């Protein structure tokens, strides 16, 4: 439906986004995800027509949008800084996009009430924005953006300023509304859970470049590179620096100083092995729920480590261990107790190793095995 071809935006000497190529399909919920300065908001503003690309073109249903002003694009945008009309009540702020299109009063009233109820702001429709909290203002801004029918909804961090509880509730409301009404949405966030929860497809951006463009499960289970792996997950992946060797027992990852040999998974080979042979920096990536923690050494594939940190998070205890100068995080049951400095053994199952060579992923575990291990 909307397509970016070779879009680059330059501000002075800074390249805010570089050579973006992607398509957002009709009815799709697309999330642009990345850290501050990644170019997410710039991309959204380019699509909205608020700024023009320095190079490249944006197409809507095959027609170029070059030179088409924002007001003629029939896109609805929600800004991170709300941009509400301060002299109008919440009701009139929500009604504004509908009235501007000449909708009859009764229909305006019905839609505004419906939206206010959905966003839990029905009790404050008579107030002006100056008398609302930040979280309330943000919900009014979201409501104003979603209330009218538009071709595409462009949402810039629309729920990021809400309290945790409300944010999780609003996330579900937003997802449900867009599913039910089959809306096309491009949503910007720096929160990976929000990206995962909402998206049909995620585009991970960093420093103006696309790091990965894939379904959310793909981004989580098969991150394309160590940037994505270190940015997605609660906690993100832990890494172990290794070297690679193909000996008599088959391919293996080595921690030379400790004399530890970690056999690769049975299906590790082919192109992945070739990259590992020729690459200079090799890292194993591990999810915190795919490493086990023991107090004794009598398990298979387990290696000595020391507890570096324990975080009691309620639903789990997150333990960080120092394993040969690599910090590895492990999710354990909240009933367990661990002491900082305690000698422990970590169970490393080669079936769960993600392998990165010079920053790029060359191997991911079989997802069926991963699913059955955490189900």
């Amino acid at each position, binding site marked *: 439906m909307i397509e970016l071809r070779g879009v680059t935006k330059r501000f002075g000497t800074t390249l805010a986004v570089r050579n973006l190529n992607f398509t957002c399909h009709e009815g799709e919920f697309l999330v642009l995800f990345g850290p501050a300065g990644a170019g997410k908001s710039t991309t959204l503003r380019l699509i909205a027509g608020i700024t023009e690309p320095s190079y490249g073109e944006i197409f809507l249903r095959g027609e170029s949008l070059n030179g088409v002003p924002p007001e003629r694009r029939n896109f609805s945008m929600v800004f991170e800084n709300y941009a509400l009309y301060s002299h109008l009540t919440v009701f009139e702020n929500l009604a504004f996009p509908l009235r501007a299109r000449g909708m009859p009063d009764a229909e305006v009233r019905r839609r505004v009430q419906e939206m206010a109820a959905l966003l839990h702001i029905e009790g404050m429709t008579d107030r002006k924005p100056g008398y609302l909290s930040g979280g309330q203002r943000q919900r009014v801004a979201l409501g104003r953006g979603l209330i009218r029918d538009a071709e595409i909804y462009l949402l810039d961090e629309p729920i990021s300023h809400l*309290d945790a509880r409300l944010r*999780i509730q609003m996330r579900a409301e937003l997802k449900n509304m867009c599913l039910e009404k089959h809306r096309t949405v491009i949503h910007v966030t720096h929160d990976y859970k929000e990206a995962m929860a909402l998206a049909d497809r995620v585009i991970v951006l960093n420093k103006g470049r696309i790091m990965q463009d894939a379904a959310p499960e793909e981004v989580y289970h098969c991150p394309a590179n160590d940037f994505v792996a270190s940015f997605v997950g609660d906690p993100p992946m832990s890494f172990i620096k290794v070297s690679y060797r193909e000996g008599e027992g088959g391919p293996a990852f080595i921690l030379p100083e400790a004399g530890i040999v970690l056999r690769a998974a049975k299906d590790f080979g082919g192109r992945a092995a070739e990259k590992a042979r020729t690459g200079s920096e090799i890292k194993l990536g591990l999810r915190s729920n795919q490493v086990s923690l023991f107090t004794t050494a009598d398990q298979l594939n387990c290696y000595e480590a020391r507890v570096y940190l324990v975080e009691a*998070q309620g639903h789990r205890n997150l333990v960080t261990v120092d394993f040969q100068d690599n910090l590895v995080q492990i999710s354990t049951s*909240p009933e367990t107790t661990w002491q900082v400095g305690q000698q422990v053994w970590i169970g490393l199952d080669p079936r769960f190793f993600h392998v990165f060579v010079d920053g790029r992923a060359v191997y991911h575990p079989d997802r069926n095995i991963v699913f059955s291990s955490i189900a």
Partner: protein
Amino acid sequence: MASVTLKQVHKRYGKVHAVRGISMEIQDGEFMAFLGPSGCGKSSTMRMIAGLEEITSGDILFDGESIIEKKPSQRNVAMAFETYALYPTLTVYENLAFPLRAAGMKGDEVDRRVQEVGEIIGITEIFDRKPAKLSSGQSQAVGLARALIRKPNVFLLDEPISHLDTSQRFHMRVYLKRLHLEFGHTMILVTHDQEDAMALSDRVAVMSEGILHQVDTPRNIYENPLDLFVAGFIGNLPMNFIDAQVKREDGYFYLVNKAMRVPLPEVFTPKAEAGQLPEEVVIGIRPYHISLVSSDTPGSVSAEIFVVEALGDMNVATVQLNGQRLQAVCPTTYRAAPHTPVALAMKAEHTLLFDKASGRRVPADR
């Protein structure tokens, strides 16, 4: 290092009663979090400890000695991530050594202390640089080192993490917690983020509207919240609340509302028998303790799917029950479209009950 005692501390700003009689004891060397939403009084309390705000009434003591008459500079309190003005003409090393020499410390000891702090913070490699040559992260680290080097009584951290993105946050948490382990300072973290508070502190003080709701270890706060506010504020997924009545039918007790009728968990039966359960209750249950089951499961409740979110390590189903939304954690393979009928089972041993009128949790007999 010092213990910190708050005794009936109040703060009024004109008509606004920001802090309403807070009393607590923070042990020497303890990591305490002040946790609550904006406007709960956590920052005012911290600023009164630092001496940046005057106390309206009550008392604050360090090691048993009242400090409210003392100026901020006499309290020896450090604040992390204050923008410390570093001396531009001095190297990083000299910036750290200067306050020690000014306090009369001898050369050998100064060097030993600077090296020690520098190594823990990880800045020994930039000891020779001048402040102008540092990145912002490095200046922050040097500022932190300078705050720590004078061994403050209390180390205050005001929302140090909340503005960081995911991967920076994990690093900063590890860093702060290790800092506490290495130096053993009394530390107070002020935050609105329950995940940071839970992950970092020995104990958490949960506040709202100037009132202290509960002070306890992260695990107790999570598992045994004293009231609805604490229960609703703690947890990476919010606790579900369901209004219900306690009813006796054919000799058995049930939790009943328009949409469901489930047996009262056994741990509450003695109280129910003794007539000590309020009739109107709020059931509190975390999403981890509700599962989607087949509809013929005894004691299950029918509902329909509102939306399913796949978060990677788990999926979260939001369901509709009698116009109310509940969340349940389900396997990563679970997918369902809106309106799909489902059945829910609540784990009895994790079901909490609150008195609807007072909001207080009803303790179970275990």
